[in-house]
Structure formats: C-alpha cells, structure tokens
C-alpha cells in the first residue's frame, strides 16, 4: 500500500468554512461593484456608450442663388471639400499635428491658433482646419486614413461670385460664422457654417441660408462607419431675384472700370435698382474661403477705401447737382420771382468775401433755366442768399437728403443736410448767412450719397413721387411718399435739365443721345480749398469729385442715373456725364431690341395662327366670370374667332 495511506483524515473544517464565507463575501463585493456601474451610474455610461458609437456628420445646405431681374444667375455655388479635425483625443491630435501641418501645407502656428480658438467649444464638435482642400490635400487625407483618424473631410457648397467684384457693393459676401453668431443661433449654426457678412448676403441671409441637415452614423472603435442611423436632409436656401438688369450692370461696371466712384441706376417709377457699382472693390471670391489677417488689414487701410460701399456710404458734397433742389425750392416757395436774373462776371462779393463761379469768364446775365443749363454759380449764390437755408433745407429733406433712403442693404449712411436748427444743436452757434451761399451750390456742410441724389432727382422728375429704392424684385407695392410740387415747377426744372444735355448745356457734348430726352445735372465738388487744390495738383493728387445725375425721358421718366467719380481733376461734365450717357444709351438700345423682338414674336405668332391679333379686350371679355353684360362678350369672341376658321 502506498505511503499516502496514512495521510491525515482529520480536516480543518472551521477553516474550510471560513474560506466559504470569504468566497460569498467577495462575490457580494463584486456584485456591489457591478451594481454601482449598471444601476447607479448606468445613465452616464449609456450616454458615454452612445457618444462612442454615434458620430454626427453635418450636411451643409447650399445657399440660395442670386438672380438678376431676368433670371440670369449672378451668384452661384460650387462644391468644395473642407478638412475637419476631430478633437476627441487631444493627446493623439497633438502628436499628429506636425504630420497634419506638413501634409496639408498649413503652418503649425496656424493650426495651434485654431485649436486654441476652439478650446471652449464642445470637444466632440470637429473644427475646420482647412476650408478648401486641394486635390493633393484630398489625396493626403485618403491615404492617411488609418494613421490619422482625426482628420476628416466634409463637402461644402461655396459661394461663386462673379469675378472682378461685379455688383460686389450690392451683393456683399459671406464668411464663416463668428462665435457670437453661433451662440445667438441657439444650435442652428455650427462652426464652419457660412452666413452673409455684408450687402444682400447679410440683408437676406435668412432667405438665402438653408437649414443644415445631419447624418448620424454608427462607428466602431476605429472610427469606421458600420451603419447609418438616420439622416435629416438639408434644406437648400431659397434663391433671391434682384431688380438688377445684368446687361445694364455690365455697361455700368465697364463705365467705371479703373475709376474711383459709384454708379447707381434706378427706375423712378417703382424704385427698382437696375445697376449698382462701387469702385474700387475687393473680389469677394477672395473672402469666400477665409481671409488672411494681412489681406484684411490691407483692404481696410487702403487709402482708396475698397471696403466702402460708395453708393450708400460715400457722403460727399453734391456740388452743382444740388442746384436742382435749390431751384425747386425757389420755384415752389416763390420767395423770389421765377423771372429772377443775375449777372455773372465770374465771381461775386457777399459780405465782403469773394465767391468764384466755376467759369472765370462769367456767364453774363442769366435766368433760372440758363443758370441750370450752364451751371452758373453766381446765380445760385444769389438765390441761396435770398431764399435762405431753411427753405433749401426743408425741400432737400423732403426730397430725402440727410436721411437714409431705406434701401434693402445694411450700412446705409444718411448724409447731412444742414439747417439753422442743426448748427444750433451741434455747434451752439447761429447760422451765418454766408453759409447759405455755399450750400446753394452744394458745398459747405451738405453731404449726400449717390443713391440719395438718384432718389431725389428721380422723385422730382416723377412730379413728387418718391419710391423707396430696393434691390429685391418684388410684386408687392413699393413704399413711397409724395411731396407736393406743382406741375409748372416740374416742367421748368425738367426743361432746364434737358437743356443741360442740349446745345449750350454743360453736358451736351458728353451726354447727348440722339432720339433720347436725357435730362441731367452735372456737379463738381471741391473737397478742399482753392489754395489746397493747387498744391494737391502740384503733388499729382486729384481732389475733385465729379457728379452727373440724370434721367430719361423727360416726361414719365423710366431711368435715373447717378454717377460719382471721385478724386479727379475733371468736371462732372467731362468725366461723369459720359458714363451716364453710355448707360442710358445701353438702356434704350436694350429696350428697342426687346420691343423689336416682341413685335416680331407677336407678328410671327399671329401669322402662324392664320389671322390678325385678337384684340386685348376681346381676350379679356372672353374669360369667364367677367362682370360685363351677358350679351356683349359673345359677338366679340365670335368676331375675334371668326377669321381663324
């Protein structure tokens, strides 16, 4: 038998029992641990599991297009890829940063700066580190997917603006939403989204901007998509149609090319803005992605102020264009007889001070009509002195000077129309009568924007109906106001403005268009004193602003053109009027072409139908529900229909 036969058979039962208790105790301890995780903190861990598993992918809604009044696309979108950085694991991100910077050709400082800026955002929200990925970037990202899982791409729709700053002043541009925007949006905006920063893009942002969609995908531990949970489709932004006439805009852009200034063309009958140019201007395509700090600073410190939207923000002395307002005030108030004449020897003395006429040789004896047509300063010095600032100020304000026009663009300036009350309020001094003399020729404290002048002159030409200028094409009635101006006054003023562009007028050579009743007024405003002017000329600087504001035709005007050319040594008649001439000419040419086309089309259509055109009344009365007599329509319909058989 074996050695083992005698092994001790008495077992330490107490100790074995203790071991049993220890087993039960430890099991309970473990169960408590599981209980804490699975019951007490379960919600938190379920949330963490969800966050592990689900990734949200932003589906960016394309922005609405911008069309001209005839439906031509002015602003469109194009697809582009943005590079996103997922910051879930900052340790990994920091380690991979040099590789990312190298592969995407962005500087380390730039990346670090962006990460720093996004520090306060929730960590699960990815940030855009490169807005427009090149082909090389896309290849880099695709090939490094396994070792750079924190890099992702997302398709965006980017804005495609017409090149060279075409219509830029009106359109504006979009940019990445700011942190403040995101906070205000209550979850609607996300980092990397675009919204309008200026112009129509800002004004109609709500219409243009769609609603982003979202795709929730299920990912595994290495971030690979293993399933799609749900998807909210993005809702594209709505397009907006402008009152801008593309063809006319092209002419206006070309007219002002290489110059500094502004052109605005509007239809005084409804306030539609047909063309809108402000020069110089930046190319908004440069902003569509991301502006560098240096570029932004350069644009803002440029002495030519390319960031200024001159049509609504350039507040300058209107010069002789203001004489139209003074003349209207003179005729309407009858403070002096309309037959008033003045002798112009080229200068005049008021209160012991010499006031020069722009024509040093003088105009001789002139009446109101001649004074407007030849732009005699001395005549208007006299008128201004006689009717006084308050009458001028009253009418100017009535015509919209010194007030915003209410155009649908952000950042409009109001200009300034001085008055006795104004100097008292601002300078605490009485109005000096000599100041009225300067204001009468559009100098002194009066400043206007090109759009204000277009609206004012257009309103006078319309016989006192002032329509609110606007860029969004609308079928609703346009806000307007009326100023009582007698027919006689309108007749005299428009006649004088027609004479400006007629033989003997200041703008005849530059502005006359055969067959078109173009009326207008030139203006040349000095921005500094006569002595300073001479010095500036010696330095090669141009310190005059040339104006031409005109409309056509003389009665029932269809088009108003306001042209401003800044910093020139030439007069409004020389540099501004030709531009207006080009635009009005183009307008009439297009109108003629369209009428011809319509005529051809109608004749063609009628011929095809085999008979003369049915008269409009016959058509209208053939419609059902016409409240006309029951017998009447029938024979007319028959008459219209007969030849067709």
């Amino acid at each position: 038998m074996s050695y083992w036969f005698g092994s001790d058979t008495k077992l330490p039962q107490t100790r074995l029992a203790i071991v049993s208790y220890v087993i039960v105790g430890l099991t309970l301890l473990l169960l408590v641990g599981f209980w804490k995780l699975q019951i007490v903190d379960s919600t938190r861990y379920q949330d963490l599991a969800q966050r592990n598993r689900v990734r949200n992918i932003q589906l960016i809604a394309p922005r609405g297009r911008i069309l001209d009044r005839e439906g031509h696309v002015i602003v469109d979108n194009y697809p582009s890829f943005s590079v996103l950085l997922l910051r879930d694991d900052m340790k990994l991100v920091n380690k991979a940063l040099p590789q990312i910077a190298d592969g995407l050709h962005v500087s380390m400082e730039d990346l670090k700066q962006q990460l720093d800026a996004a520090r306060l955002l929730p960590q699960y929200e990815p940030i855009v580190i490169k807005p427009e990925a090149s082909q090389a970037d896309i290849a880099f990202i695709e090939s490094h997917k396994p070792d750079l899982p924190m890099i992702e791409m997302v398709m965006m729709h980017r804005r495609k603006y017409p090149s060279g700053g075409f219509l830029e002043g009106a359109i504006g541009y979009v940019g990445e939403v700011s942190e403040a925007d995101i906070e205000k949006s209550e979850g609607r905006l996300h980092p990397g989204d675009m919204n309008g920063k200026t112009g129509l893009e800002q004004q109609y942002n709500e219409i243009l901007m769609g609603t982003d969609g979202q795709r929730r995908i299920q990912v595994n531990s290495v971030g690979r998509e293993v399933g799609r949970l749900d998807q909210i489709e993005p809702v594209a932004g709505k397009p907006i149609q402008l009152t801008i006439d593309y063809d006319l805009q092209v002419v206006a852009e070309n007219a002002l090319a290489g110059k500094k200034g502004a052109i605005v063309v509007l239809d005084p009958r409804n306030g539609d803005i047909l063309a809108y140019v402000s020069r110089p201007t930046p190319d908004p395509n440069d902003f569509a992605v991301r502006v560098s700090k240096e570029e932004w600073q350069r644009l803002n410190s440029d002495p030519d102020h390319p960031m200024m939207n001159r049509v609504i923000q350039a507040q300058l002395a209107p010069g002789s264009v203001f004489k139209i307002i003074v003349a209207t005030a003179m005729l309407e108030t009858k403070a002096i007889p309309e037959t008033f004449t003045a002798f112009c020897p080229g200068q005049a003395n008021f209160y012991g001070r010499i006031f020069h006429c722009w024509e040093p040789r003088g105009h001789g004896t002139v009446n109101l009509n001649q004074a407007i047509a030849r732009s005699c300063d001395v005549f208007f010095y006299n008128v201004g002195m006689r009717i006084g600032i308050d009458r001028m100020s009253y009418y100017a304000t009535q015509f919209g000077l010194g007030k915003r026009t209410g155009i649908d663009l952000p950042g409009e300036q109001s200009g300034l129309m001085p008055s006795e009350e104004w100097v008292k309020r601002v300078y605490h001094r009485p109005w000096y009568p000599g100041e009225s003399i300067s204001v009468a020729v559009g100098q002194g404290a009066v400043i206007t924007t090109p759009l204000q002048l277009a609206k004012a002159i257009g309103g006078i030409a319309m016989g006192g109906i002032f329509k609110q200028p606007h860029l969004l094409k609308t079928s609703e009635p346009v806000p307007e106001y009326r100023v009582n101006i007698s027919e006689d006054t309108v007749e005299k003023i428009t006649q004088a403005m027609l004479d400006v562009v007629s033989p003997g007028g200041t703008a005849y050579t530059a502005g006359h268009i055969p067959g078109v009743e173009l009326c207008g007024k030139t203006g040349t405003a000095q921005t500094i004193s006569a002595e300073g002017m001479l010095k500036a000329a010696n330095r090669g600087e141009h310190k005059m602003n040339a104006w031409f504001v005109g409309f056509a035709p003389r009665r029932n005007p269809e088009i108003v053109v306001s042209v401003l050319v800044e910093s020139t040594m030439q007069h409004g008649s020389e540099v501004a009027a030709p531009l207006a001439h080009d635009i009005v000419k183009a307008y009439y040419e297009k109108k003629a072409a369209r009428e011809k086309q319509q005529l051809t089309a109608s004749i063609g259509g009628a011929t095809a139908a085999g008979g003369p055109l049915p008269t409009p009344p016959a058509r209208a009365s053939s419609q059902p529900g016409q409240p006309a007599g029951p017998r009447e329509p029938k024979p007319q319909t028959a008459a219209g229909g007969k030849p067709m058989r």
Partner: protein
Amino acid sequence: MRERAGIRDYDWVLLGIALSICAMGVIEIYSATHNSHMPGTPLYTKQLYWLALGAFCMFVISRVDYHRILEQAPILYLIGLIALGLVFAIGQTKMGAKRWLPVLGAFFQVSELVKLIIIIVLARFYSEVRTDRLSLADLLKVAVLTGLPLVLILKQPDLGTAMTLAPVAVVGAFLAGIQWKHAVAILLLVALMLPVGWHFMKPYQRERVQTFLRPEDDPKKSGYQILQSKIAVGAGGFWGKGLGRGSQNQGGFVPVRYSDFILAAMAEETGFIGVLLTLGLYMALLLRLVHNAQRAMDRSGMYLAMGVAAILGFHVLVNAAMVIGYMPVTGIPLPLMSYGGSATLFIFLALGLVMNVRIRRFVN
C-alpha cells in the same frame, strides 16, 4: 475501500455548474466575434473543441488515484521547471512575451501546466506537515517551492499568471494552520517588497499600474481599455442590451472582448441580471469545490480541491475586478468563459483532480 468508483460517484452538480459557465462563455464568444471577419474556424467552434478535449482529459485524470499523482509530485515539479526553462530556449514569442511551447502542432502556454503542477506539489507538501501549526521552516519551504516557478513565469514576462500561483500557497498555508505572527510578518514583507518589485517591473507593467492609479492620464491605452470596459458594463443597465446588440461589444470598443474582457461584453449584453447569474454560478462552483474539500478522504485530497478553488477564485476575483476598474489590467482570463485552449484544458484537468478526490471520498 471500494475498488472502482462508479458513474454516480462523480460530482455531477460541479460538472453541471462548470458546463453552464462554459455554455455562457461560448454564447458570448459567438456574440462578440460573429461579425468580425477573422479567418479560419470561428472562435466559438474552437472553444467547443477545447471543451470537449478538456472534458475528456478531466475524465482521464479522475480515473488515476490522486495519491498516485501526488507520489509523482517531485518529478512533475521538475518537469514543470524544465518546461519553463524550455520556453526561454525555444518558446514562441507572442505579444511581446515568451509563453508558448509547441506540442503536437499546437502551442501551449506552459504556465497553465505549471499551475496544475503547483497545486499537486503544494498539496503534497502541506499534507506532509501533519500538525496544525505551520513552522517558519515549512513556510520558507513553501516560499521556495512556489517562488521558483513564479519567478520563471515572471521572467516571461507574465505577471498575471505568476501571481495566480500565490493563492494556492496562501490558501494552503491558511488551512495548514499558519501562525498569526507569521501571517502578519509576511504581509509586512510583501508591503516592503512592493517598491523593490516596482524596480524590477517591465515598463508596460509599470504603465498598467500607473494607469490603474490615475486612469485619466492615459485615456487611449490601458486606461482606455478600463474606461471602455466600464462603459460597456454600465451601459448594460439592469436588463442588458440583448445578445449581439451591445454597441460597446459589437463596435469593438471593449478590448479583447472574447477573452480577458468577456465579462464586460457579457455585462453589456445581458445586464446586471446576466452578471448576477454569472457570478452566482462562479460562487456556486467555488462553494462546490470547498464542499468537495470538506468531504475529501484525507488532507491531501482537501489540499488538491482547495488549491483548485484558490486558483479559480483568484482568477474570477481579479478578472471581474479589472472589468469594473477595481484592479489594473493584468491579462488574467475568466476561467471557463474566456476563449483560450491552454487555460480551458488546465481548468478541466484541475476539475478532474477534484473529481478524483470526490469519487474516492468514501474510502475509510
């Protein structure tokens, strides 16, 4: 003494509990791997083969009187040490550690075999003490007997498996009647040894301990594993997400979810209910082992059964505690559930030893 033990003498309850745990393991291995595209035979099929082989080995080892096995303890001990030495000479390196020896075209983790040998060797040693007071000399002998293979395994390096040898010695010493002063002295010694041990640790081992102490420092590596495991467990809630529906498990967030972290996968998909059932089964298994020890024919049989209980209990405790973040990641699998050939074989051989003790309980 009866010459032959009958079928009825086997501990069918023990086997039933063990196979229930195995079944849960196989199901969870299936759930955890069915949608991953690993080439070759699916893991759960392989596990079934191992289980069958294990059950067969269990039967074989139960037929040989355990006293005969205990007689061979010195030779087995030598074989164990030689095998560990061979691992260094010709062992296969997998995942940075030499643990595998080729046998019959498969690779075996020698340390699993050594666990079995240590159970046998210490059972023999303790049963020869023959008093209820363990002397210091006896304790030193136990320390040397256990320490030699332990250091060799530690050198592979495999800290987790090396540690599993200790509970056999500790539980044995407790049953053999360790003196309080010695117990306290040993505890103090271990506490003092910890800094020294730190010095000898491999960098990855230090990292694991550091991560355990401050998990937020390293959320992607061991800390990440622990965190993901905890998320899986917590997300399971009371009822679980359903088999095959745990996002942490199916998405691969739970690390080695078919092996070391199978309990996390289980907890996510079957919830607290599943955990309760699993841990309940383990508790029943361990209590059943103690039950068999209490009814053993002699002390040597008791030490064998309790050695098995000590190792299995230690595995369950360390593994479950790791899954819920109470212990660092050590690479100790959950016995009977985790996928693994050598480990499964070892457990069934160990259970075979207990069966062996069981069927001979009526002698005398």
